Each structure stands twice: as C-alpha cells, then as structure tokens.
C-alpha cells in the first residue's frame, strides 16, 4: 500500500456510484475524487437507474443489492437498447453479494467489470478504473 501518487486526469471521469451503504460510497468517493474523478452517488435503485439513463456518466459503479429495484434489473434495463437507447457508460458491478456461479457468469457477461468489494480497497478500485481506459 503506497501513498496516493498524483495521477493524470482520467479521460473517463464522470462516475455514478449506485450504492446504498453510505460509508462505502463515502470511501469510494474520497478515493475517486482524489484521483481526479467526478463522483455522483445514488443510494436508491430507481433513482440510480434514472440517473444512469441520462447518459452523462462514463462509468457506473453498480451495487447489486440496492433499495427499490435490484442491481440486476438496473443492469438489464441499461443494456436493453429499447429501454436505454443511448448508453455508452462502462458498467462495473461492485457487490458483496455472492451469486450462483452461472448467474455471476451472466452478470459478468453483461457488465464491463465485476468486483467483490470486500476483496478490494478503494485504491485498488481506482487502479481498476484506470485500466478501463486502456
């Protein structure tokens, strides 16, 4: 774990974090903001989906267990061109929920990344998002 080094401004910089665990979104926002990202947080699934559909974000961090609508539902809606005609954001699943392996494979297939939150630190999340640009 090295101290954060100043990173160049990321190209994909607008991040939507759909996450109902306030402390986690706080930690992620802190790390991402320091790395030059702009972060919006939505604690509710429906509101998160509505925000995601505005198509102003480059990256969407999507928790699978959020209030009012499941993350899988959000993912499906965002990936369905009839529901969300314009969608260019990268969708990264961030979850602590364990899926059945076949479900997980399916989710991974639809998303651009899949992270188990307990297995990464905020700094590692930043590194991961950095690799999306390449």
């Amino acid at each position, binding site marked *: 774990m090295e101290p954060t080094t100043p990173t160049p401004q990321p190209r994909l910089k607008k991040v939507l974090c759909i996450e109902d665990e306030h402390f*986690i979104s706080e*930690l992620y926002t*802190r790390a991402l903001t320091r790395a030059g990202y702009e972060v919006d947080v939505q604690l509710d699934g429906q509101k998160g989906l509505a925000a995601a559909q505005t198509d102003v974000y480059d990256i969407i961090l999507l928790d699978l267990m959020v209030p009012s609508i499941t993350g899988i539902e959000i993912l499906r809606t965002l990936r369905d061109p009839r529901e969300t005609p314009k969608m260019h954001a990268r969708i990264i699943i961030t979850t602590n*929920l364990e899926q059945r*392996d*076949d479900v997980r*494979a399916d989710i991974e297939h639809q998303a651009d990344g899949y992270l188990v939150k*307990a297995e990464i630190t905020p700094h590692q999340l930043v590194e991961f998002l950095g690799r999306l640009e390449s």
Partner: protein
Amino acid sequence: MDFFSKYRSQIHTKTMLLMLVLQVFVVGSGWLLYLTNRTDMMQTLAAMSVLALCGTILFARLVTHTATEPIHMVWQAIQHIAPHGEAQPAPKVESLGAGQELVSNLVNHIYQMASVVDDIERTNAKKIQDIHTNFVANTLPLPFLVLDKSDTIVYVNEAAVSYFAVPLDELEGKNVYTALDLSFSDDQTLASWLKEARVSSVTSRSKWERVRIGLPGQKDTRQFDLAAHYNKANPMGYETMLVLFDHTEVYSQDDQAMSFVALSVHELRTPLTLLRGYIEVFDEELGPNLNGELKDFMKKMDASAQQLAAFVDNILNVAKIEDNQLTLQLHEEKWEDVLRTVVNDLRLRAGVRGVTIKATVARDLPTVGVDRYSIYEVVANLLDNAIKYAKGTKEVHLNAVLNKDGVVETSIKDFGLGIDATILPHIFDKFYRNHRNRAQIGGTGLGLYLSRAIVLAHGGQISVSSKVNEGSTFTFTVLPYSKLAEQGKTGDTNGISRGAHGWIKNHSMYRE
C-alpha cells in the same frame, strides 16, 4: 294341477293301494287258513289280528318314509347352501318316488334364493369397499388426481379441488393438459413420461421436482413435487394416478433467495470492505508519520483484514461445493500471471510474518485451462498455509513446471512445522486439523478440503508430502488448455463450464 296337489294325490293313491293290499292279504290269508285247516273261528281271528298288526306296522313305516323323504331332501338342500355349519351334500332328488317334481322345484327355488342372497352380500361388500376408497381418496390431505388412457381427468379429490382453486366440473372430464397449466423444470415432463410409459411399460412410476402451475386469476404460481403411477392394465380404466406435494413456500424462497451462508457472507463482507477501506485511508494519511512499531501494526491489521476476506470466500466456496453449486468457467490463462497475482496479494501476509515467498516458474509452460477465481483460492490457501506453518523459518517456495505427464505441476513448500505421518492421510478432510498444531496455528481446516475439491474439478491432482520439523510440500496439477480443449472435443476459446462434481451437463459442448 300344481306340484303339491300332485304330490298329495300320489301319497293318497299309494296309501289307498297299500291299504287295499293289506286288507286283501289279511282277509285272504284268514279265509284260507279257515278253509284249509278247519280251525275254529277264534283261532282264525287271532291269527288275522297278528297279521293285521304286522301289516299295519309295515304300512305305517312305508307311508311315513314316502311322506317325509321330500321334506328330508328340502332340509338337505337348505343345509347344502347354508353358509355356516357342516357342509352337507346336495340331495339326490331323482331318487325320489313320490313328490320328485315338487322337491326338485322347491330345491331349485332354494338354490336360486341362495344365489340372490349371495349376490346381495357381495354387492354390499363392494359398496362398502367403494365407500372406503372414496373416503380415503377424498380425505387424503394431498391433491390427488386420476387420469384415464386419453389423459382425461376422471377423479379429483377434495384437496386437489381446493389446491387448484377451480370448480370440480372444470377438472373432472377435462383433459389434464388443458385443465392444468403445468410447467416442468426440464424436458422430462408428465406428457413425455406418459408417452414413453404407454409404449414400453405396463406399470411405471415417476416423480418430478419443482413443477409449477399457473392458477387462473392468481398472479403467483404454485410449485410442487409430483409423483405419478401408471398402470396400463387397471380394470377400472384408472390409468394414471397423480399426487402433488406442495412446496410453493420453500421453492419460492429458494428462488428469490439467498442461503444462510450467502446472507452471512454478505453481512460479513460489508464491514470488511469498510475496514479495509479505512485501514487504507489511515495508512495513506498517517503512514509516513508512524514509527516503526505502529507501521508494523498497521500492516498486521491490513493483513488480518485480508485474511478474513479470504476466509469468508472459503466459507462461501465450501458451501457451494456442498450444494453442488460450484461451477467453473475454464478459460485459457497464462499460469505465470495467475501465480503472480496470488503471490502479490499474499506478500503483505507473508511480510507481517517475516516470510518471503520465492516463486520459480518454468519458462516453457503452456497456457492452462483454469477458472481464475477458483484456482486463485487454491494457490492462496496453499500459500497462506505455508506462511502460517513456516513458523520461524524465513522462506516459502513456489515452483511451477511442466511434468513428465505433460501437465502443469505446482508445488508449494515450507520448511516449518511439518505434519505427523498419522495425520497426513486425513489432511484433505473437511475441518481436519492437527490437534497439536491447533493451539499454535489459526485456521479452520477448510482450506485444504476446498483446494482439493477445486483442483479435482479442474481435472487435476493434489498431494502432500511432509516430515515433522522439516516442513511440508503440497503439489497440485492443472491441465494445459490444449489438453482440456481436447477433452472437450473442441478448441472453444469461449471457455468451458465445469461443476465441482464433474462436467456441467447443460453446456452445449458436452451434449451428445
């Protein structure tokens, strides 16, 4: 003239005839006696009286026999058909002189009445049996249906009517498939089974789990297990019996749901995520200003959080293996990359215990076919164990080579405590740990059990050699991707699905 009058006149004639013969005999013989012997009147009268007495006795016997024999035969006939008592042979009516017709007529009547009574008794017994059957079927606390050979529902019990929540007349007399909207979890359905049974069996049984039924006017489907019995030869035409076992509650919980383990894992991971996040923040902010000891504590705290996260993964994976839910997605991977990821992740944990991981990977290794998540667990568990059991020694060695069988062999060696020979055969058992070591080393004994299951699911082998106080070496193999693709009959680069207990059946690649 009826049989009885005829019988009476027969007796009458016979008696008259006998009387006449008797009189002629007595009077004739008296007269003869008187004329031939010239005896006096008194003697003749005495002789005649004796003769008349003897004749009367004989006559009475004859008449009695003739008159009572028919009654005897009727009695015999009744005894013959009587249900209880000693068995009596049927009377021989044809041997009867007087009253033969009357008796045979009476006997026939008796026999007819007996058979009528018998029929009534039999019908009653059957009725009682029917009432019993109906009672049992109707009060059976499980939905129960009977189909005939054209799949028409011929009987539905009360439990079924209330379960399907439709009136009886929408079920009875209707085709089962139109009356009930059934869906099965796979290709083997009631219809396909019945079709096969009708061709190839006289009787057959089957059962299905997780059958769903959509009910009219109800949003939610019901889910049940279904048991069926088929009998082609049923005399009543009751060809197929169906019994339903409702599991709607359990199955819909399963559907939405998370097992206890999955839920616990989620609850454990959230605080772990935070813990690891805050440790990182503290390290970033305070790290440069901490003294050596505090820095060390910070690292230990971080290593502990990592270890806990890894253990949570172990619990989850063991639960998956037990439930036969672990599915591997085998992809072509560079083995060196996989090993490097694990070694990097474990460096902190090794560092806080003063152990260095020395990794040597042969240059000529082919790509391997592995599920990167699962095989990561194997290497991480084995390395973690080696670090823990190193105890005072400084190094843990990791070596990967292509062995003589053409598979990639990886060994992880420590120079620490070692394992007693008596324990070695049980080392991959679940929860098995060395009692002597338990006090000194943390852990649950899940890691090796899990590692073995994952390695075997990959088509590899795992083994151990050890000597007390000299250390242990765990060795496992994984298949080069080319070999794996060969087993799968194709070089599919999209990956291969496998279960912890064998090949995953639904993968199209393995369908015949």
